[in-house]
């Protein structure tokens, strides 16, 4: 359990480091070293030099969704494979056969998705 404590301390130190680095210019701005001359043009959203049209938080293309769904399904399977990979020597042939059946089922679904065109980027 000692090791996980070190990871926790690392998280705290890393957060502290990131925060101090970000707040350093803020302190310098209060001291007047870092300039702060804002204008309406400077604070507008960048759009190749033209004035900004419309908003950018809009509905986005649907094709990203297929990949997200496929990823969730397959990633759950991959996480299941980790304990099997660690204990392969003890599980032996039985474990191998079970995982093989699982992978064949997955392969069927994968080939189906391929032929249905879910893997195309259109």
């Amino acid at each position, binding site marked *: 359990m*000692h*090791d*996980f*404590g*070190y*990871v926790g*301390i*690392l*998280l705290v*130190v*890393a*957060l502290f*480091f*990131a*925060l101090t*680095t*970000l707040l*350093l*210019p*803020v302190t*310098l701005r209060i001291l007047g070293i*870092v300039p702060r*001359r804002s204008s*309406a043009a*400077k*604070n*507008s*959203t*960048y*759009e*190749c030099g033209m004035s*900004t049209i419309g*908003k*950018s*938080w809009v509905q*986005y*293309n649907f094709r*990203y969704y297929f*990949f*997200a769904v*496929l*990823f969730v399904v397959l*990633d759950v399977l*991959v996480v299941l*494979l*980790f304990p099997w*990979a*660690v*204990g*392969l*020597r003890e599980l*032996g042939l039985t474990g*191998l056969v079970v995982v*093989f059946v699982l*992978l064949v089922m*997955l392969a069927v679904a*994968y080939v189906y998705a391929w032929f249905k065109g879910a*893997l*195309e*980027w259109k």
Partner: protein
Amino acid sequence: MMTLLEEFRAWLSAALPEWAAYLIAGIVGIFVVLGFVLTLVIVFIWYERRLLGRFQIRLGPNRLGPEGIFQPIATALKILIKEDVVPEKADRVVHWLAPIVVFVPVLMVFAVIPLSQGAILADLNVGVLYLVAVGSVSAVGIYMAGWGSNNKYALIAAMRTVAQIVSYELPVVLSLLGVVLMVGSLSMTKTVEAQVVPFIVMQPLGFLIFFLGALAEMNRCPFDLLEADSEIVAGYHTEYSGMKFAMFYLGEYGHALAYACIITTLFLGGWRGPVLPPFLWFLIKVVAVFSLIVWLRATLPRLRVDQLMAFAWKGLFPMALINIFVVAVEMLWLVDISRWLVVATNIVLAVVLILAWSRLFVLGRGRVEV
């Protein structure tokens, strides 16, 4: 075997109460690791600029200090006194949090990297799983940056990043499973100890898949679509300036360093090597991997989005699945006969699979229709 940090803690606890020894040992260890990371990141920024200069037949930064080594320091000072612009329409909280969410996980990765024999911060028994878990948090930060900026280019880049990292996560994790199968443990120290023959020789296909997937995960060329400056300005950090931009920049190089360390540990035998001291071997291998990454950046053009997705889902993913199954079969029956039989089989497997799959991907014919 005890790590150096545990020995230090045991030595401290002779004089101090248990909790104080633990805390002091932890903080000293963390500062050593952070010192290593930040020094190497700064050196790498300079090194990449010099190396890219050589690749493009020019000099690169060479004015400040010997061979221009102080150039990153000048850049840091310049960035420190830059004005910080937050666009009016941005989501201010998300805009400020994004650099932290990108940067902190990169530092967290180094907790389980053995820098030398016994020099590891936390020898977790779930080390490889920890790498997978922590390594992909940065994608959330990049998405936050794109969303929080309220900029069209930034949002396109963020969407691309999520699609790309999600797609390459699977081949990367599957090729890691090949390593776990050979070691029989998730601990990083045990992984290094198991590599009498480095795993790049034992399973060349697994190494190739992991290397290409890692390139995509750290958003380097030829997979750097999220900051394709010819299409979407500067990508997700279009609206960032000053120190917040520097955090993204550091995070990117930190990511490259982290993956170079991971590849060294998992596939190149970590600190193992003859004659030279272990830490020097580790450093040599890390710099070699990073040089390879820079070389690829200098040589290869950027992929298109459809090519990128097809390469992950139709190329790397099925190859990785076949690879782990073959490795599993080998570990059950072949490895007890001879280790070199496994090496021979895997080299043949890599050649056959790459030749078979290369027929699907033909360059120069426009869209990849696989």
